[in-house]
């Protein structure tokens, strides 16, 4: 499926991968609704995009991805202000610091709300519009972390796994009607969210955005970013549980 020409929505675009995706969409000449919670960051970044391009392509909308009830009216408002939307990228995500012996429901709830329920709310709102139009593309940025439950961040893993499963179901519902649903699973990427993790071999966020848009153009169902993570995660997914629970990865 080729990319469209209508308005794009990028949820979670004040930094990291979402910002890189929004910049590339604007560079490609698309109108981009940039959504994020932190108003100052968001407005500055949208202004930077418009300044570099010397024309208005980025339109900031303050939105908290955990606020599920705000999604439907905001989607309608964006279409009213910027014209029909044919592409939505859900890139919002949170990964709070969790100690190895910490079991904090507050932190867990936030991760499920932002990483999973937020994606569901935006996926549903997009589906309601894309299905009757028989066109459109929904891209959900999950994580390789959703492929297994691990000692470090059980709920981050679970929230990304839930997102993965939801997107698969949504894809199976919509694809037959001409609507694309693409799941992205990035490996280590250089973003503010991962800045303190000391990741090795993390790719630049712009490189991740390039690969995400390539997966969109090629109509991929699931894309690991970069592609080598498909092989690595195949191995990790197939480690038997009795062994996996003894490992520290």
């Amino acid at each position: 499926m080729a990319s469209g020409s209508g308005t794009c929505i990028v949820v979670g675009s004040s930094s990291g991968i979402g910002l890189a995706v929004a910049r590339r969409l604007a560079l490609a000449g698309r109108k981009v609704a940039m959504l994020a919670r932190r108003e100052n960051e968001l407005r500055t970044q949208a202004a930077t995009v418009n300044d570099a391009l010397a024309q208005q392509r980025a339109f900031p909308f303050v939105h908290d991805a955990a606020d599920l009830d705000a999604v439907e009216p905001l989607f309608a408002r964006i279409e009213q202000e910027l014209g029909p939307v044919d592409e939505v990228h859900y890139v919002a995500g949170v990964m709070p610091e969790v100690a190895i012996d910490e079991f904090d429901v507050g932190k867990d709830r936030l991760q499920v709300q932002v990483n999973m329920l937020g994606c569901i709310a935006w996926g549903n709102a997009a589906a309601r519009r894309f299905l009757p139009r028989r066109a459109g593309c929904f891209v959900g940025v999950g994580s390789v972390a959703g492929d297994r439950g691990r000692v470090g961040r059980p709920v981050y893993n679970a929230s990304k796994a839930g997102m993965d499963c939801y997107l698969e179901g949504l894809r199976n519902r919509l694809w037959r009607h001409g609507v694309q649903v693409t799941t992205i699973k990035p490996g280590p990427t250089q973003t503010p969210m991962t800045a303190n993790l000391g990741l090795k071999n993390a790719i630049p966020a712009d490189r991740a955005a390039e690969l995400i848009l390539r997966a969109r153009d090629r109509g991929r169902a699931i894309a690991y970013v970069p592609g080598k993570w498909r092989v690595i995660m195949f191995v990790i997914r197939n480690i038997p549980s009795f062994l996996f629970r003894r490992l520290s990865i």
Partner: protein
Amino acid sequence: MTETTSIAWRDEDVRGFGMAVGGAARVFRPTTVEQVADAFAAVRAAGGSIALRGAGCSYGDAATNTNGHVLDLSGMRAVHAFDPATGVAIVEPGATIRDLWRRSIEHAHWPRVVSGTMAVSLGGAAAMNIHGKNNYVLGSFGDSVRAFDLLTPRGELVHCTREGQPELFHAALGGFGMLGCFTRLWIETKRVHSGRLRVWGIVAKDLEHNLQLLEDLRDKADYLVSWVDLHGKGAGLGRGLMHRADHLGPGEDPDGLRYFDPGLQEVPSTLFGVVPKAWLWPGMWCAVHLGRVGLVNAMKFAVGAREQRQSPYLQTHGAFHFLLDYVPRWQWMTKPGGLIQFQPFVPRAEGARVLRTLIEKCHAAGHVPYLGVLKRHRPDPFLMTHAVDGYSMAMDFAVSARKSARESLWTLCRELAEIVLTAGGRFYYAKDAVLLASSFARVHGEPTVAKFRALKAQWDPDRLLQTDLSRRLGV
């Protein structure tokens, strides 16, 4: 020093970046301001001395303290905040130039002054009052510091601004760590409209051409720096390749938007995408030790003509500025003797004559620097300033492991220094390794040196803060 349990001194060999000077010291890496204060108190009580050290990028002995104590501030490297509205970052002294630009470029800001390597700590940059390739436009690093907190040797924390503490502000910036330890700095960055610069390579056929280019372009260019092939002789003496870079305006480079991603500003770690650059220094070692640097330079100069034909081109800020980071551990090519850099600052009127004389003297003495870098400067308001309205030429000498060759190099550099001082020139302590105490007052003038010594006596009466450099200069 065991007065405070949180302080664990370790015996280490502490050297300058050039590896040619330095010696054994007791080192501690504090992580908090309280630990710095505790270390000050403990060593002061014992009558010892402390050198403050950032990332250890000073070529000479500015951050070494043979047989004394060294506080290595690399463990205090937080960037506390960056305000996209004002472009001001609040940092700890051990945070590096890389830490600063990685934060600011995300918000379309670039540090106003950066050095040729991004490894430099911001506390060190402030203490040495470093300069960049735009010194003639935006001044030195101190000009981009809005404020700082200084922990004095007596344990007092003083907040300094241009207005609030003008004397200490202008003396501590460039005061090579003699008056106190920066514990927090407010640093201004500059709004940019692209993640890239427009760059020109311009062949300069000799020294006079190089200097003429600096004069002709200084009102137009945002950055100017010339690589000089110091092996060039006769008509080619002082020949080189000038690089000019300009900032881009809104809409001039739409694709430059992507390069606000810090990951795209890093200097590439491989050559041709495959060969790790960390493997290159042994090849360079061979060039230095087999006397083939002249040949390498001649080839580089020849290739410059092609770069000129392809100019202008677009280059990221990181790739343009941080040439010294292209080859990791390049300084190892000068092992085992190490290297020293001799960087005279010469007033404009004397520039051509003095620099030509220096190069000729090097040839005559048989110590030809493997690298020369020419820049344009302007005066700044700091007490111990090295800047002049004129030029600087950094000359990198490989130091021989043989004692006699090493001594003859030091002798040569002192002869060169004499020529520079007679012409009213200056030196820069982030680089220097050779000046004698008798030169200190000649660099700055007697009244300035007296004022600096008075401030030292006021804020550090016990002479707690010392380095090999400060003892060599008789501060």
